[in-house]
């Protein structure tokens, strides 16, 4: 029930005590009252369901080319029209959503893991370890991330990496540029908590390192980590789209929202076939906004000092 308070709270009989509402439950209650954040969450869930289950109901196969029906405008048969190879845009849009969301979440998870471990290690050991980790992070932060991604993407094309692996490599690339910022945040937060008076109280009480870390430090970092990782999904989706738009990320025929917008790259499609690039554009825009709104809502809510 209350993983944050750990040991003592869970092991005791709580029959005599009044209802224990954990901080997480309180936070969830407050979150439910935040209409905007809940709307964001509802949209994210909706997007997931539609992208992962929608294509199952589509009468059109994923990458089936049909030159007879190329570049058709939206109709009852093809709700969002067809593209220049006669593929159904709606089916492709949903398939693309799977890839974009997966890449966004997976690269967030990888960068959060790398970033928080390295940040925590730097803050815990300090000294030379801290110096090395943080200088590497600083170095990566000083180089603008988009050019790095472009160069990496171009290198992948040069080395003729098989198309089906590109998606996984894009995840790694995005985590590679994502972790330094996270490591910095986690490190600074750990250092702040270390100096808090309740940590000094933990020293005076003679608590062991494990208890200090798991009962006092980590519970104070987790809320921050949840908020940052939520917000960074949006960023990762955007970066992946940019890469794919320039043909350096996930490659066709695998669709992503980014390489679908690539259609806007030539003037004829841009002017005459707007159904090719408006839907993926709207999908990116709405998904990222929903994630950011939800992330902001989480941030407001995950502060125990805040009431109602």
């Amino acid at each position, binding site marked *: 029930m209350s993983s944050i308070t750990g040991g003592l709270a869970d092991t005791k009989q709580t029959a005599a005590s009044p209802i224990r509402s954990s901080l997480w439950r309180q936070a969830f209650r407050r979150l439910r009252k935040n209409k905007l954040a809940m709307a964001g969450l509802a949209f994210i869930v909706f997007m997931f369901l539609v992208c992962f289950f929608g294509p199952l109901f589509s009468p059109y196969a994923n990458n089936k080319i049909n030159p007879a029906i190329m570049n058709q405008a939206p109709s009852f048969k093809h709700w969002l029209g067809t593209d220049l190879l006669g593929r159904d845009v709606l089916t492709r849009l949903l398939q693309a959503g799977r890839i974009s969301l997966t890449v966004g979440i997976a690269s967030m998870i990888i960068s959060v893991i790398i970033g928080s471990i390295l940040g925590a290690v730097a803050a815990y050991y300090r000294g030379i370890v801290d110096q090395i980790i943080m200088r590497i992070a600083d170095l990566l932060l000083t180089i603008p991330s988009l050019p790095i991604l472009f160069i990496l993407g171009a290198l992948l094309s040069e080395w003729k990496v098989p198309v089906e692996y590109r998606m996984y490599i894009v995840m790694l690339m995005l985590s590679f540029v994502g972790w330094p910022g996270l490591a910095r945040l986690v490190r600074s937060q750990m250092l702040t908590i270390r100096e808090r008076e309740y940590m000094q109280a933990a020293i*005076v*009480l*003679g608590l062991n390192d494990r208890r200090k870390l798991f009962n006092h430090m980590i519970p104070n970092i987790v809320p921050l980590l949840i908020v940052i990782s939520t917000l960074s999904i949006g960023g990762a989706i955007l970066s992946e789209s940019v890469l794919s738009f320039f043909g350096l990320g996930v490659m066709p025929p695998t669709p992503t929202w980014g390489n679908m917008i690539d259609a806007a790259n030539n003037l004829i499609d841009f002017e005459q076939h707007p159904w090719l690039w408006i839907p993926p554009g709207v999908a990116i825009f709405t998904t990222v906004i929903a994630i950011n709104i939800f992330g902001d809502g989480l941030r407001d809510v995950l502060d125990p000092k805040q009431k109602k």
Partner: protein
Amino acid sequence: MAELTIAASEGITPQQNAPLLEVKDLKTYFPIKSGLFNRTVGYVKAVDGISLTLQAGETFGLVGESGSGKSTVGRSIIRLTEKTSGEVLYKGNDLYNMPEKELRHLRPKMQLIFQDPYSSLNPRVRVGDAIGEALLNHGLAPKEETRDRVLDVLQACGLSSYHIDRFPHEFSGGQRQRIGIARALILNPDLIIADEPVSALDVSIQAQIINLFRKLQMTRGLTYLFISHDLSVVEHLCSRIGVMYLGTMMETAPRDELFTHPLHPYTKALLSAVPVPIPRLKRERIVLKGDIPNPANPPAGCKFHTRCPYATDICRQLVPEFRHMGSEHYVACHLV
């Protein structure tokens, strides 16, 4: 849990007749770093040669104005801030000369009560867990008993049993300070260092907390090192009082002796500033000029000479000795 088998006090061998706490010539300097390579360019001499002895059961009050180093004394005694030199003996055992593990097992015997009741409690830990966790962590009580022990100590500190499952932000300042006291008390400490425990509270709550300290001393025979800048609080609670200035002890004496016959000009000035509840009483008010000097560059000779109304040439050149003036009264002044 390996600690379960080790009782907290087994780590040391208490020596017969040794006082509970003995501090010998304690010095705590903080390095001042500056420049490109973080070189140490000087030291803030927060504590500059303090000696004191605490017998079991007594209450020693440490007073002085802000920046005099009284909090650092308390923190250095329990190794929260590392000393620079000197000795801290607990029942005859040097706290600075024992393995980390042994020290950790000894820590429950010496507790610190923090000045700020707001920041000294982890906002994400329930009150009951915050109070009981050290007991569990040291294996001083089995899990099943912990909750009962917490309830007992909550009651002793004037809190209710239903408070046990609440979070710190649900309490007022005075209640939080009681939680801090309960957290220290549950470990049955020999020594409690209270670092200005009431200065963050308003006056009516201050009285409650002070009375709680008194009650606990009577019922449990605690030894206090009570750090405060408020002489009236110290007068109410302490049996012996030490006056600190700029990291050095100026005068120590039993309470009544200090309040009736202060010898050091600094003590006299402090006492003359204590408000008295008799409006028409004419008193000589000694007003000290200027601020406490920079502890990184303390004045030569007697540290107080820059603000002392009676300073002479010898005060500016020679450091006064800490002399015994009879009846447990010590003073560091050339003119006495």
